[in-house]
């Protein structure tokens, strides 16, 4: 339903806008057709009654044809065509009332002919204006919604950051090292602190350069490296051109965490995580690949991925992509972001 009906105050306000609009239209046609006040009213009142409802219809049209969906000429063409149809329909109603009231106001239908062009043009323009207004409203709504979603996702990502499993296992590693290798224990404390601090700092910003996200990812992997030792092996293949690409903060790190938690951690011998970064036509391509045990007890990896997917959608609509491929023993997640270069 059109949002204007959600609150009767808005609806009344909307209707009241039509009073001056109707007055202006009335003045125009009464001048063009030399009509008297009552004659003008007989034509204008039904026209306005119909028009104020017709001008709510763009709500549906505009959502079906989002601004970015197709080329500007096509979009404009479609709306101009719709405006012409609306003008035609309204003109028909005006003519019907003109001839209907001819009995009371002799010669009204004849004199109205002279006012037809100005009425049609005005109606078409009012309709086009309502389309423009609707686009503005829809745009404002979408951006508010995506901002909300992004904030929520960020909060969740942050919460996931200090994922209790990761934190407690890391603390346990530190506890193990204190007696065997105090130096390494201290080093691990520092790595963990670095990671937590950085993720808190980055989480406050909506976008960060890819380079910074990868630094955070490395801090995370540094900590996990202590836990998993040689079971966790890394290979990075990142094009320097990706460095300054803009990415949503903390979007990639959860993917890396998934690769460790659901891949490496459940493999006896561990394995190599391969991270790939490329500049592509669409923007930035990032993929992460890890070996996994297809026989392993099912784990809840879906939640993290769903979260990433949701954030992508809120941020980029259909332009951001997240693809998941699972072969016999390799799991690959590919991310494509329509990324601008920062700075």
């Amino acid at each position, binding site marked *: 339903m059109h949002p204007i009906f959600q609150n009767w105050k808005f609806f009344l306000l909307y209707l009241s806008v039509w009073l001056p609009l109707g007055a202006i239209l009335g003045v125009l046609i009464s001048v063009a057709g030399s009509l008297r006040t009552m004659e003008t009213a007989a034509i204008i009142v039904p026209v306005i009654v119909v028009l104020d409802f017709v001008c709510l219809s763009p709500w549906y049209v505009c959502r079906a044809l989002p601004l970015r969906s197709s080329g500007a000429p096509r979009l404009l063409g479609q709306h101009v065509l719709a405006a012409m149809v609306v003008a035609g329909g309204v003109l028909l109603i005006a003519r019907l009332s003109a001839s209907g009231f001819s009995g009371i106001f002799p010669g009204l239908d004849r004199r109205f002919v002279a006012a037809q062009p100005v009425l049609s043009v005005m109606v078409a323009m009012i309709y086009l204006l309502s389309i423009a207004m609707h686009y503005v409203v829809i745009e404002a709504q979408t951006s508010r919604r995506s901002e909300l979603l992004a904030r929520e996702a960020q909060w969740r990502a942050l919460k996931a950051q200090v994922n*209790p*499993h990761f934190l*407690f*296992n890391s*603390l*346990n*590693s*530190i*506890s*193990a*090292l204190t*007696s*065997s290798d105090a130096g390494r224990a201290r080093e691990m404390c520092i790595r963990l602190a670095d990671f937590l601090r950085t993720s808190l700092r980055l989480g406050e910003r909506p976008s960060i350069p890819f380079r910074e996200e990868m630094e955070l990812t490395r801090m995370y992997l540094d900590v996990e490296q*202590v*836990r*998993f*030792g040689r079971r966790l092996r890394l290979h990075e293949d990142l094009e320097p051109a990706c460095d300054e690409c803009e990415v949503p903060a903390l979007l990639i790190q959860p993917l890396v965490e998934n690769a460790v938690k659901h891949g490496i*951690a*459940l*493999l*006896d011998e561990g394995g190599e995580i391969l991270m790939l970064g490329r500049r592509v036509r669409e923007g930035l391509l990032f993929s992460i690949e890890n070996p996994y*045990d297809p*026989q*392993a*007890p*099912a784990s809840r990896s879906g939640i993290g991925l769903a979260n990433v997917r949701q954030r992508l959608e809120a941020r980029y609509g259909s332009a951001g992509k997240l693809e998941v491929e699972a072969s016999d023993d390799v799991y690959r997640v590919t991310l494509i972001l329509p990324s601008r270069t920062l700075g």
Partner: protein
Amino acid sequence: MKAVIADDEDLARGVVREYVLRECPEMEIAAECSNGFEAVKACGECKPDVLFLDIQMPKLDGFEVLELIDARIAVVFVTAFDQYAMRAFDAAAVDYLLKPFGVERFRAAMEKVTRRVGEERPASLPVDLKNAARPVGEYLERVVVKDGARVHVIPAGKLDYAEAQDDYVGLRSEGRTWLKQQTIASLEAALDPKRFVRVHRSYLVNLERITRIDPNTKDTWLAVLADGSKIPVSRGGYTRFNALVRG
């Protein structure tokens, strides 16, 4: 006393080892295992009195290990926070240690172990523990059974049917029958009710395997499976089957 430590992280095993050596000089560490298979194997071979068991491990998780080992072994879970597992610990484990844990906490656990060594695990069977630890709406994707000293994993999709046999269930999969100590009711509770239907007091059948249902006597039917085997179907089972198939 003999102990086995099962954890996939070297450092995590190190903590337990260190505490055992320092606090329980009379205790011998018979084996250290880095995955679930090894843990089951070591428990069979070394016959330990106590098993320190992590939950998330390669091959088999801690709950699966628990299902497959001798019920007399005193199990101490050693794990990081797990919201689902927590509530289940009390049931089958002597104690649980949450990583990281201090030496006092370890001593307390060892006191419980000493008191309980040799006693049979009371309370519920470990398979029910696993059910309790699973979040609502998630079902077992696989069933683990012991095959001599080895562990066999039956993916849920490859399980044809299960038959109750006293304290055991016979699990029919790929032309073989595996015996597992479990009640058919707890197996039924663990498997996805949309895929497995209890057609009879003693039979739980994989819906995908049923090719047709023939009338047998008044009030009983026979389910004919893809491999030709015939499973008795009770009146209640017939109703459940129909309810499931008709959605």
